């Protein structure tokens, strides 16, 4: 008679094995509405409320225009094969030139954003991008693709960036996650964008893994922890946090490239959003500003700090 029973110990099953996927592609249907709700929640605490409420409404506008936009199409097989062969991201950012879907997105977003309750400076900036011609919008988009913002037109560029987010989130969601491969350190494997921040997640099956969040298309990609998000170095990585603030937002500093990026511990604060909480943790940027490290990645909503 067999002595084997169902409760025979299996040492390999002790604990919860973590096998994170390489990418988690964005879901446009929920991305902006969840982010908006998080902005509102964060607005309930602290003196940044007016800015956070404004951004909540901007996210509502992004969410609101999704339903009527033409469905995004994945790149054709030839383009995917070429991107794969040359280790490039599957989404070609240069393709926005002459893309009528992007123009429609811009027009609808700026119309929707008109209803937002906002200061005069924001209203003027919106009026300027709303009346800009396609060539001017394209020029601003190209500037954003280089992770820079002109110091005297930050608000205008953020409106353009909001439109690009809607466009690229749609494109990224149409990709096949299994076909998305690593491109380079600090580069989104879907669209080539710079990371906004990264977070250690507590998702079931991926607990304890760190994901970078793309500032453009919202793709989350798995990235080894204790490794610089910006340059890939594993030497001299340190973490700085505001004393007594719970330790779920930290500045990951790198002594190789002298950069820092924000890292969130979503496993400790499950409602975290990599963009909304980035703005709400402006205090960390303010304190880090006096230090020897400069912030890398791309977080336009905190431009200038």
């Amino acid at each position, binding site marked *: 008679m067999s002595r084997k029973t169902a409760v025979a110990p299996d040492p390999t099953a002790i604990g919860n094995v*973590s096998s994170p996927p390489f990418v988690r592609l964005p879901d446009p249907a929920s991305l902006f509405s969840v982010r908006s709700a998080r902005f509102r929640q964060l607005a309930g605490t602290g003196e940044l409320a007016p800015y956070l409420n404004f951004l909540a409404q901007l996210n509502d506008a992004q969410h609101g225009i999704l339903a009527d936009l033409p469905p995004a199409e994945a790149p054709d097989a030839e383009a995917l094969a070429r991107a794969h062969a040359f280790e490039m991201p599957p989404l070609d950012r240069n393709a926005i030139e002459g893309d009528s879907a992007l123009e429609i997105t811009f027009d609808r977003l700026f119309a929707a954003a008109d209803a937002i309750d906002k200061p005069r400076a924001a209203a003027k900036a919106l009026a300027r991008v709303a009346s800009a011609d396609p060539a001017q919008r394209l020029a601003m988009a190209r500037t954003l693709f280089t992770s820079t913002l002109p110091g005297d037109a930050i608000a205008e560029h953020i409106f353009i960036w909001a439109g690009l987010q809607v466009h690229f989130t749609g494109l990224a969601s149409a990709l096949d996650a299994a076909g998305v491969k690593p491109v380079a350190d600090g580069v989104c494997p879907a669209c080539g964008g710079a990371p906004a921040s990264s977070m250690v997640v507590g998702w079931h099956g991926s607990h304890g893994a760190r994901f970078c969040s793309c500032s453009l298309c919202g793709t989350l990609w798995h990235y080894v922890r204790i490794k610089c998000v910006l340059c890939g170095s594993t030497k001299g990585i340190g973490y700085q*946090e505001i004393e007594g603030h719970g330790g779920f937002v930290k500045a990951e500093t790198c002594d190789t490239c002298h950069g820092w990026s924000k890292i969130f511990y979503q496993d400790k604060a499950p409602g975290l959003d990599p963009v909304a909480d980035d703005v709400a943790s402006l205090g960390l940027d303010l304190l880090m500003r006096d230090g020897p490290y400069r912030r890398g990645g791309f977080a336009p909503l905190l431009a200038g700090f």
Partner: protein
Amino acid sequence: MNMELSRRQFLGAAGAGVAGTALGAFGFGDIEAAHAEAIRAFKLVNTTETRNTCPYCSVACGVIMYSKGDLKKGEQAEIIHIEGDTDHPTNRGTLCPKGAALLDFVKSETRLKYPMLRKPGSDRFERVGWDEAIGRIARLMKDDRDANFIQTNGDGVTVNRWTTAGFLAASATTNETAWETYKVVRSTGMVAFDNQARV
């Protein structure tokens, strides 16, 4: 963020003028100033996350150790948390009950920090020097091997066994250390032996 703020691209004189930050550009400059004032009372603390290997057994699971204070910056560092390393291929974020209790192992008052000797008949350990410890271990091993070494078995076949002593070696070692440990121990004829090279 202190990103490069490039020169204006196209907006010309119609632009909003010089606005230093995103909050200022949208017209929220006053709350920015209030926030900057409020945060001044707080300060940053250095913390570190370090990869290491669990020292318990030869499986050698990866762990991440969190500490407060940064040794590189001349501060006192204190370990505050240890968890399984999700990026480590051996354990993928898991730890056994012993590994999960590593923090207490690190901070244990009875943790072994230097060679200790309990002499025959004594009821307590006393601290000894490394030279004394290693010399004594070598002496006792040699005596035991000389007394109990088995050169041939009952049929007269050469076996070169030393069965009266055993050797337990480290888990957190390199391949080279494990290889060398194996060669040294097996060369003496020792049979009871475990180290990382087993797995």
